[in-house]
């Protein structure tokens, strides 16, 4: 982290960048917030640790409109989102100085809370430099501990790899965290009966409060105005009078980002109701991989997106019924 701060100070000092986009220490041990830093003094509050899960690439849409370059701290998976945004002309590459920051897996406070750990005073072992495999958590109800991996975000268990697909320089080390199959859960659901599938999604989506956190955090959902907010389709927004509205919203949202979603997992991270929203996107990714060839959105700048491409021999929609 110190290396990152030092580098940020240098780049600010020599005028390479006008500001730094990173994370500012929070007032609790686990809530650093995305923040801009314009001076060396401000960087005193800079933090980069296991709780810096937020994908900062979407902030670059606004930062691209600002005067001068922004040094943006992107984790390996965040760089895919950034690349995709360049591809869609939503960010300006020239306005970004990309610090590819190392990553050893990001933590999910909800996972820690789910262990019944509450009244948290301090957390040890969440620093990037720590080699500790265990989180030591001091609470007002006593000290607790948790294996780092057990506190990790779902997405880190199926990590795409620790390579930055785009960067100006790489700072800090990474550690492999992948220990699960990316499509394991999707396959499990696929194997259920229609009734079981339906009841699974009914209960998950039944929690949705239409708060739009998933949409607003999503780097692929970068529309200036979402269709659900405009009158173009006469589509419902905010309301959840009927359970259909959540289904409509989440299916269409996933469809709109299909072939563009990098599987960054932010949607699931921010969902206040803990809905595994990535399962929608990942289903599309799996289908695209199987039907149209493997495709990783944001891996490159010039590939054709699966939904704006075709071949004569493409599978017919009837394949859906046939696959069983």
């Amino acid at each position, binding site marked *: 982290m110190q290396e990152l701060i030092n580098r940020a100070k240098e780049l600010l000092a020599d005028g390479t960048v006008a500001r730094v986009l990173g994370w500012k220490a929070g007032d609790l041990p686990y809530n650093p917030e995305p923040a801009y830093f314009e001076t060396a003094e401000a960087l005193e509050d800079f933090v980069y640790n296991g709780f810096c899960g937020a994908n900062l690439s979407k902030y670059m849409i606004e930062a691209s409109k600002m005067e001068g370059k922004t040094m943006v701290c992107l984790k390996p998976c965040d760089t895919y989102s950034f690349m995709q945004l360049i*591809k*869609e*002309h*939503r960010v300006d590459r020239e306005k970004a100085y990309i610090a590819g920051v190392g990553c050893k897996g990001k933590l999910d406070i909800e996972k820690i809370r789910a262990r019944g750990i509450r009244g948290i005073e301090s957390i040890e072992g969440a620093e990037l430099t720590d080699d500790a495999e265990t989180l030591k958590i001091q609470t007002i109800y006593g000290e607790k501990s948790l294996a780092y991996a057990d506190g990790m975000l779902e997405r880190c268990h199926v990590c795409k790899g620790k390579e930055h697909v785009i960067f100006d320089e790489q700072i800090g080390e990474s550690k492999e965290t992948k220990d699960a199959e990316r499509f394991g859960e999707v396959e499990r659901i696929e194997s259920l009966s229609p009734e079981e599938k339906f009841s699974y999604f009914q209960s998950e989506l039944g929690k949705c409060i239409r708060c739009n956190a998933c949409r607003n955090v999503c780097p692929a959902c*970068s*529309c200036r105005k*979402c*269709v659900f907010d405009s009158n173009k*389709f006469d589509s419902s927004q905010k309301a959840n009078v009927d359970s259909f509205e959540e289904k409509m919203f989440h299916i269409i949202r996933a469809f709109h980002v299909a072939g563009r979603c990098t599987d960054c997992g932010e949607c699931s991270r921010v969902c206040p109701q803990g809905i595994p929203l990535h399962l929608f996107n990942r289903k599309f990714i799996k289908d695209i991989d199987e039907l149209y060839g493997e495709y990783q959105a944001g891996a490159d700048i010039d590939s054709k997106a699966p939904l*704006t491409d075709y071949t004569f021999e493409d599978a017919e929609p009837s394949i859906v019924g046939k696959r069983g």
Partner: protein
Amino acid sequence: MQRIGVFVCHCGSNIAATVDVSKVAEMALMEPGVAHAEDYQYMCSEAGQAKIAAAIQEKGLTGIVVCSCSPRMHEATFRKAAERAGLNPYMVEIANIREHCSWIHKDMEEATKKAVILMRAAVAKVNLNTPLQAGESRVTKRALVIGGGIAGIQTALDIADAGYEVDIVEKTPSIGGRMSQLDKTFPTLDCSACILTPKMVEASAHEKITIYTYSEVEKVSGFVGDFTVDIRRKARSVDMNKCTGCGVCQEKCPSKKAPSEFNRGLNTRSAIYTPFAQAIPNVPVIDREACIKFRTGKCGVCSKVCQAGAIDYEQKDEIITEKYGAIVVATGFDTIKLDRYDEYAYSQSKDVITSLELERVMNAAGPTHGHLERLSDGKAPKEIVFIQCVGSRCADDRGKPYCSKICCMYTAKHAMLIRDKYPDVNVTVFYIDVRTPGKNFDEFYRRAVEQYGVNYIKGQVGKVIPKPDGKLLVQGSDLLDNRQILKEADMVVLATAIEPNPDVRKIATMLTASIDTNNFLTEAHAKLRPVESPTAGIFLSGVCQGPKDIPETVAQAGAAAVKAIGLLAKDKLMTNPCTAHSDELLCNGCSSCENVCPYGAITYEDKEVNDHGIRETRRIAVVNNALCQGCGACTVACPSGAMDLQGFSNRQIIAEVDAICR
């Protein structure tokens, strides 16, 4: 709020017999926005149109719905009627209660209910219609004809005679097509070459016609009036300007083993060749696969003997890009492959041949110099059996379901010619039906039977068995006498089904012209627009549209030419106003729409916008309305809904969905 008029057509009894039309009109009055509703016997008639006009003017209607036949029939009629009455023509919607309702349902109550729903959907849509203005686009006064057979030649001549430039693109080294391979033509027995060659010469000499032989259409873009076409001129290896057509190169060429395409592979030709003596242009090409120079680098005889110095081994394919206002497809046909008809022993015996091969055998310039002989041993046949409908009218997927149309007549021709020239040869024809609907056709056939004693047997041949002595044993049945027939023959001739040239699929895709399951190009209307493709600016000439004989082909070629001329005669075309447009406040500039646009109609501009007080420069999609054809691919690719299609807007379609599901 719109003031909508609903007009329900009885279509005589076509609609009224199954749909309670007055009930539909009555129900229409319940719909929001409907200010007027009536039903009438024939809405498309003068009187019907007058009713519409009167209602528009008297009731101040802002939109109308006509519940009638398919919009593909009379949408244009009603739009014009509305326009004459002062209403924007795009404020008209059609509810198709004939083809989609009265004609397919029997129960009156059910059909009426459905008609009401279709009316509602149309009313819901027209409530959201907005007046649209058609734009204009220019017409390039030049036509392209794809295929240089008799169809293409005739079309090109007719267009050129009307004063327009025409280019013919022909895949093979010479124009002439299938007709040039024929010996005689029915029912007059004219020599095919004698009547074709003057046409070929006329085309090549015509100042308005440019012929690209040994060339193929590579890419087509644009739209009616303004197509841009890339033509690949394959490397001929002979300089067209220098070659005098003396033919010495062909004579001296040491490689003479390539099968002659023109003679259907029955003999061979040299590596440097013109397909036939009357070829136009009379400039040979080098078949690089067969040429020793190209295969081994050694040889070069042709270059040495060519006094004009026309041989150019370095020549490369050349791409020409040209603009056209109209395109005529005249890609013709080929006979089907017979590998799935093993029972006729075509692949086993040289003496089993197709009728087209027989044409070459009977032709003086053919492999046997016009002598009727067995290809296996050169002996004169005494017994010839013709088998009809090989692959035509076929119920299974080995052949074609359709009648190839020309076989009955050319078989009668062949039988007659053989009996005439070789009276000692017995000719037997196995047929399913003999079809002779054409001027002088049946007379022709009867002459074959009555005057020339051709033995016609109604029945099919099950098997042809080559015997060790070289004879062919034909096993057939005589359906009229209900008996099995075993017949020894010296030659068997198969009336092989014809199919559209296999290349037509590729060409149809480039032209976005639709094609049917048999690869024949679809006409815009089977009866009323038989020479036009549904794709504007594309016309159909000859067998690419369906099986035809020469006179029909020539007639259709002329008809296609007239349609093309009609288009080229216009200076401007009205464009379809149902094009896409992008809402600049919603556009993200993400390029998704651009990536799916087949016409390159979408570009991006950095534009200053005022988004509710926020002024900024944004990358915004801009649609070129002259290029946009209104498919709507972009509207779905656009995640924000910024792209919408006029005339088929998101809200209009949703209104229809809602009305139907109500």
